[in-house]
């Protein structure tokens, strides 16, 4: 052991030529992907006249007028609250009902289970885009047009999330649950104290993607609300162009205000998201 064997490599410098080349490719791609956002920021800090002058990245006279104008329009805080209420409720309901259903399908036996499972999986093929019109008339019949519930509940039946969690629960070793069973714990206790804590990465991935989808959902709130007080951020922003006419700095400031909350959230949660995607087994399917 005193003489180093040839198989043991010297710790090589991380900046090999290959690494430098890869990093340059990554830098170029990142620059292309971020530049539209930077351009939006640059536009939002210009005066309306300067924004339509020949394109340049750094504003000549920096102004926050557009940001102030959008914020003072009075509706943004309202839209923001609506978006938070809708997305938080949707995420909570989906996490609870989808994980319960996935557990029921993965770990319990009852008559008609495989038929119900098949019906649920058929839901992978239906999307709000296809169901749009009949979904609207159903919600209308339930008297939920122009209500929070009308915006929230139809987003709470994603078969895909049940499927992802079902696959994950199936991959958990049964022994953990069996030990608790022998100790006399019921299914519900096992679900909440053993299965859910083990599923944190998967649940956070499902939760985060549900939240993103709900926060950015445009078509459904657009169809189900006429009341401007119930508008969510994406819908409000889409109508800003009508309110202001086409004033680019205002449009871009509004867009950044609508988009920033999720980007900030992602900065903090990005490693959990990547781990969650890996953990669900979705990627290695």
């Amino acid at each position: 052991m005193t003489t180093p064997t040839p198989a043991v490599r010297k710790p090589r410098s991380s900046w090999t030529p290959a690494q430098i080349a890869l990093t340059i490719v990554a830098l170029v791609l990142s620059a292309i992907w971020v530049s539209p956002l930077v351009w939006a920021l640059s536009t939002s800090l210009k005066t309306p006249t300067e924004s339509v002058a020949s394109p340049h990245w750094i504003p000549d006279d920096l102004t926050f007028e557009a940001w102030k104008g959008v914020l003072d329009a009075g509706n943004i805080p309202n839209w923001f609250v609506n978006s938070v209420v809708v997305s938080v409720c949707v995420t909570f309901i989906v996490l609870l009902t989808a994980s319960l259903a996935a557990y029921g399908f993965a770990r319990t036996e009852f008559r008609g289970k495989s038929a119900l499972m098949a019906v649920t999986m058929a839901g992978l093929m239906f999307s709000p885009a296809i169901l749009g019109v009949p979904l609207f008339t159903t919600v209308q019949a339930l008297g939920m047009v122009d209500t929070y519930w009308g915006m929230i509940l139809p987003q709470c039946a994603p078969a895909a999330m049940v499927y992802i969690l079902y696959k994950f629960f199936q991959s958990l070793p049964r022994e953990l649950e069996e030990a608790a069973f022998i100790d006399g714990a019921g299914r519900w206790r096992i679900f909440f104290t053993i299965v859910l804590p083990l599923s944190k990465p998967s649940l956070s991935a499902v939760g985060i993607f549900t939240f993103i989808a709900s926060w950015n959902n445009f078509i459904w709130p657009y169809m189900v609300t006429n009341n401007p007080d119930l508008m969510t951020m994406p819908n409000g922003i889409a109508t800003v162009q009508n309110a202001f006419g086409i004033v680019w700095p205002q449009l871009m400031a509004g867009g950044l205000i609508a988009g920033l909350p999720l980007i900030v959230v992602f900065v903090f949660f990005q490693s959990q998201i990547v781990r969650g995607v890996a953990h669900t087994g979705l990627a290695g399917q």
Partner: protein
Amino acid sequence: MSSTTTTLATTLRPRTATAAESARLRWGRRFQHGGWFVAPFLVLYGLFVMVPVARGLYLSFTDANISGDHTSFVGLDNYREALKDDLVWSSLWHSVQFTLYVVPAIVVVALLMALVAHHTVHFKWLWRLCFFAPFLLPSAVVGNLWWWLFQPVNGMVNHVLGTDTPWLTQKSTAMLAIVVATLWWTVGFSFLLYLAALQAIPRHLYEAAELDGAGAFQRLTHITVPNLRNITGLVLALQILASLQVFDQAVVMYQFTPGPEESTRTFVQYTLEQGFTSYRVGYASAISFILFLIIAVVALGRMWLLRDREEGTTR
């Protein structure tokens, strides 16, 4: 220490359940049935998926309007009309055209991004953030942003390329503009799937190949690519299904119009125009089911392909 002894003592002692305890047990036993776990989801699913599906199917055989008054049964008339409706076929073609352009682009770019982000040693978080950030934007914001970027005069795209193409107002580039915006917006999701798949490839495969003298390119073609086959199938399926339903970003980029010479009216857009602008709910439901049939064929086709492969391989 003391708590352990107490639990041991209580479990060992033959116990007589109090009334409250046995009531709780009985309650507990009644709800042990697996049906209670799936019930909450199935209620929502029934109300907001199955009922609309059944309702849509029924409406597609009627001449219903949005108010629901004076509905009468018209048999297959709506479907017959749809087959003869040029706008059904042209809008369907626009959605298919969009899918044919955007799906290969997403797969190639997402894979490239994932390889780069996986194999670089430094700043991995930065690449992840940059590639994924656009996915976090609402579709309306994406639509407005690219509407601005594609402006013929003083738009950033023309400025960078040194051209003066009227991207959004001529038929030949109108769809391309939506494809570029969508690629930029949604590639991050597929990128994450690829990244997770790359991380799941066992390291020892690469180490063994390296010891056997395989170069970087050989490792890529012999280890990485074969191991990504499954995830590519998943990405393709998800993207095809999503792309056929394109709507949001397209209508925002074209301010809810059908685009230059009606070249960007997508299928979902036409459905909603019929349902909410022309108030022809029955007809709109019928054409929705045509799209559903296409999507069902794609989804079942994927299942069939997968089954075929699982039987073929020994794993």
